[in-house]
């Protein structure tokens, strides 16, 4: 160290100037009703820099009539490494195109590891992940089970990946090949 640095005082004053300057700058921001911090209030605020492909909370896509697109095939529940998806199937004889649908579809967010394998496994594009994780923190892990009403909050009309209403799929004729 040079003599100047070994005198402590001036270097210390320089340091105090830096930290004090940051303090005054942020204080000025706060006093003029702006935010003088990098912190994001969680969960009140959503971070602006979530990646576009961030794997957040799940949504179930819907048919135009509002029913879940899910066919209760249990592939997601099977592939789930955390075993946090529970599906109970129901049979609907009035809808011959989609006779099988979930009567209960629950995800335990206290165990979900947000790996996205359920999305990959789904043959019907019925489950997807949004990039945010809204309203997940809870005081009680029993309240962290989300079921159909919470998962069906996504508006399908804005989906571009799969146009609605979908064209009726032709049944492949057996033995053609």
């Amino acid at each position, binding site marked *: 160290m040079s003599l100047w640095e070994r005198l*402590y*005082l001036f270097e*210390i004053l320089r*340091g*105090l100037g*830096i*930290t*004090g300057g*940051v*303090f005054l700058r*942020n*204080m000025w921001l*706060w006093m003029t009703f702006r935010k*003088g*911090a*990098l*912190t994001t*209030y969680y969960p009140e605020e959503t971070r602006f820099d979530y990646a576009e492909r961030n794997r957040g909370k799940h949504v179930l896509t819907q048919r135009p009539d509002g029913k879940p697109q899910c066919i209760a095939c249990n592939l997601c529940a099977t592939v789930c490494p955390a075993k946090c998806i529970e599906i109970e199937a129901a049979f609907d004889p009035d809808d011959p195109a989609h006779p099988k649908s979930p009567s209960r579809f629950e995800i335990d967010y206290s165990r979900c590891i947000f790996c996205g394998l359920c999305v990959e496994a789904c043959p019907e594009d019925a489950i997807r992940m949004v990039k945010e994780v809204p309203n997940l923190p809870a005081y009680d892990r029993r309240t962290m089970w989300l079921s159909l009403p919470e998962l069906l909050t996504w508006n399908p009309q804005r989906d571009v990946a799969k146009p609605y209403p979908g064209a009726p799929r032709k049944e492949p004729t057996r033995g053609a090949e």
Partner: protein
Amino acid sequence: MIQDLLVYVVYIGYAVSVLLVFGTVLTWVERKQAAIMSDRIGANRAYVRLPFTQIKLVWLGLFHGVADGLKMMLKEDWRPVTYDQLAYALAPWVVFTPVLLVFAVIPFGGILDPAALFRGIPAVAAWFGDRTYPLQIARLDAGLLIVFAFGGLTIIGAMLAGWSSSNKFSMLGALRAGSQMISYELIMGLTVLGLIVIYGTVDLDAMARQQSGVAFGVLPAWGVFYQPFAAILFMTAAIAENKRIPFDLPEAESELIAGYYTEYSAMKMGLFMFAEFIEIAIIGALFTTLFLGAYNLPFMTDAGFVFPGGGTVALPHALVVLIQLVVFLLKVLLVCSFQILVRWTLPRFRYDQLLKFAWKFMFPLALANLTVTVVAVWALRAQ
């Protein structure tokens, strides 16, 4: 006689409440200032919910201090198996009490004249007659010496705590505290000697009064302008006295867990922390009184302003008392804020550096400062 009792009971109530409020609020100031300095928001989640409503008062996280206090009170008071339960139980109080006592001799305002204050109520004015009271709990000629006497007592508390805890970490912390505080106590005394030579008294109120004049034609006659060097050394030594970063080796948490109060829990540990925070305020008050013109605004006396140009502004007594009380608190808060700024800026010294810094760097400087001051004062008086 009754009048005296009444006034001093009010004074003591004021002083104790000011100190306790400072001790609590400084925890909040420290958190918030540190947060703002490092682009964070700081603790802001504790709230008080108004009963029977959903209205939650957050008030910028001010209630975190209350939450801390409650937590300390409700925690289990765990006791180590020590051979000296008495010293163990006594130590927090030996640290805490002298810190409060020091404030008794610090003037927090000028002269209070109740008759002038209650001119509108003749009965009260007549009851007080021509009695006047300095705004100070104990008007002692040896004020500064009392400060050092009581300030030195806290070392005993730290040593007792470390010694009676039956813990190696506590013991090491106490050893460090002992040698550090004694070293820096000496430097504090030496720096203040220069001021004593200049003011010619150790009475804190007389010192405060002398600082309302004019120095070098334009500047207020504050101690910091007569003794800038001593002010820096005093501040450094005072922070070391209070065992705060960069001198917090007695309780260096990465080395000694919590130093001499490792074995303390619940409110006993809270007392140590509280004493430390109150001592920040005490150091602020002492620095204000000695170096920053005490309770007066620049060029202000008990009668009003006397500016260096020759202009004077007379002020009513009630306004003067109010200004002095508020200005004193503001100055103390500013000095406290500066100490917190230092604490969140500098890294910790190594222990050998700490003692070397005291004995090989600050001690000669303090001596040199004293020598120069004495020679200068002698030369000026000889004219």
